[in-house]
């Protein structure tokens, strides 16, 4: 199958939990160089969609495609090996391991990697994220914002082509939020593709080139931010009418 620059594509994805349809017949695609804001009210299925698109959940129906190849059933580590990195809604660091060790885990899963090379790469990213001076500290001792940064750094260690960031700005101090936004923009300019989930509309609108909106498990809008913001269906969803 050809893929015309599309990195990840979900085709008529459906995922149910008991009687709840968390993702309902969703088609979504992410092309190389995209910076997509994935938004929607609480419980709209954003995180479930990310879990399906990164191999952490198996869809009940539909297909997940990576560069045109169907990868349903591929384990999460397989997605990581193919350049798909992610962060989590509630930060999931290796809390009793040091900052540097957190970075080394993904670095050393890459084929042919050595500890020396991975350490050098980790220190470069830690420098980029202003965490270099904390490399010997246990991850659990970082502030909430620093933990978000470290999780981003850990994802970067996979040298991914696409990053799914699940609520990277949640509970983050405004100064650090600005720093995170700056780093995401810099990484995007250097060629990385992003899908960012967040409730913080102001932050999302500052970075997103395209918005995908979900409500009650369905995709209700997909387009340029200006167009999506004016969409009556979106406004209704956010006001609880959809």
């Amino acid at each position, binding site marked *: 199958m050809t893929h015309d620059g599309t990195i990840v594509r979900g085709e008529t994805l459906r995922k149910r939990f008991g009687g709840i349809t968390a993702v309902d017949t969703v088609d979504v695609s992410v092309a190389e160089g995209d910076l997509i804001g994935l938004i929607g009210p609480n419980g709209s299925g954003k995180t479930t969609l990310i879990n399906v698109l990164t191999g952490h959940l198996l869809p009940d129906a539909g297909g997940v495609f990576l560069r045109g190849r169907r990868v349903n059933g591929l384990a999460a*580590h397989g997605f990581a090996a193919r350049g798909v990195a992610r962060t989590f809604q509630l930060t999931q660091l290796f809390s009793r*391991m040091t900052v540097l060790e957190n970075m080394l885990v993904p670095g050393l*899963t890459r084929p042919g990697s050595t500890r020396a090379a991975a350490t050098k790469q980790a220190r470069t990213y830690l420098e980029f994220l202003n965490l270099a001076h904390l*490399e010997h500290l246990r991850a659990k*001792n970082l*502030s909430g914002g620093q933990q978000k940064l470290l999780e981003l750094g850990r994802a970067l260690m996979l040298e991914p082509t696409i990053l799914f960031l699940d609520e990277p700005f949640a509970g983050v101090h405004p100064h650090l939020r600005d720093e995170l936004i700056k780093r995401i923009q810099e990484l995007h300019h250097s060629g990385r593709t992003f899908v960012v989930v967040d409730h913080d509309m102001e932050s999302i609108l500052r970075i997103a080139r395209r918005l995908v909106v979900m409500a009650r498990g369905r995709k209700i809008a997909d387009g340029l931010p200006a167009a999506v913001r004016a969409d009556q269906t979106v406004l209704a969803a956010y006001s609880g009418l959809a």
Partner: protein
Amino acid sequence: MRWLHACVLAAAAAAGLAYAGHLNSYWMHVAIIAMFYAILTASWSLLAGYTGLFSLSHMAFASVGGYTSALLVLWYGIPIPLGMAAGIAMCCAVGGIIGWVCLRMSGPYLAIFTLAFSEIVRITFSTEDQVTAGMAGLHVPALLQSTSRLPYIYVAFGLLAVSLAIMAVMVHSRWGLFFRAIREDEQAAAACGVRVAHFRILAFAVASGFAGLAGGFYAHYIGVLTPSLGSLDLMAIVVVMTVLGGMESLPTAVGGAITVEVLQELLRAYGQWRLVLLGILLLLTMRFARNGLLTPIWQHLVRLGDVPTAPPATRDVGQEGSRV
């Protein structure tokens, strides 16, 4: 001095070996059994402490290793070291299968599963008395033709040293990092590209293999093998030893085995009360030193010899948070 902690361990081991010849037969036996337990606690630490897989079937694997070696030697007359190697291989294979079967289990579910497996093994060995001699005990050829226990001390020490060296290489390699990542958060480890299932099975297979080695040695040292080697009582002792010493590092787990074994002998005059004392010590450890009683000492030793490659974070975390 970068390797201070390793030098201290080596010096302690050398001093212990040099002094071993002066021990009487009774204390030689205590030392041998302490080293038998040390292999078990170190390998259980690899599984439960490093990888977070709280298995209660470790002594069952020791039992499988012991019976495999003993029966092969008795039936086919193969050399004892070959029998012990077969016991290790058998335990690695069965451990790998158990690891695969309980891939999706953790915490209490894994503990209950492995507890059930442990009891199945013990009852099977007990019931199949035509093969295993059951509780009457299987008479097993001795590893060494020696009336002294000193050669056994050297063999036990050699096995412990080789086991620890292999496990130390593992835990300091990328595998060790992946084991700890799995212990911390399996989902995040998978997102980082760690093949979680692969490494969980590997941890089970390797730890079970070392348990099999300990069981094989025990069988050919004691000379009589009963299904009680795989009993939950002995599993509880392994857990107590590892937890008291510190389950997240090999030296503290080994230290726990030696300390508890020696304490049990020193307190023998108190009869069953010594077990109560050990129980109270375990309660206090869980309440006040969850990382084990020997962990602070070991960490201090490591820090003494540590030469930081980059400036350590000395600033207050709260200040760091406000900085950004």
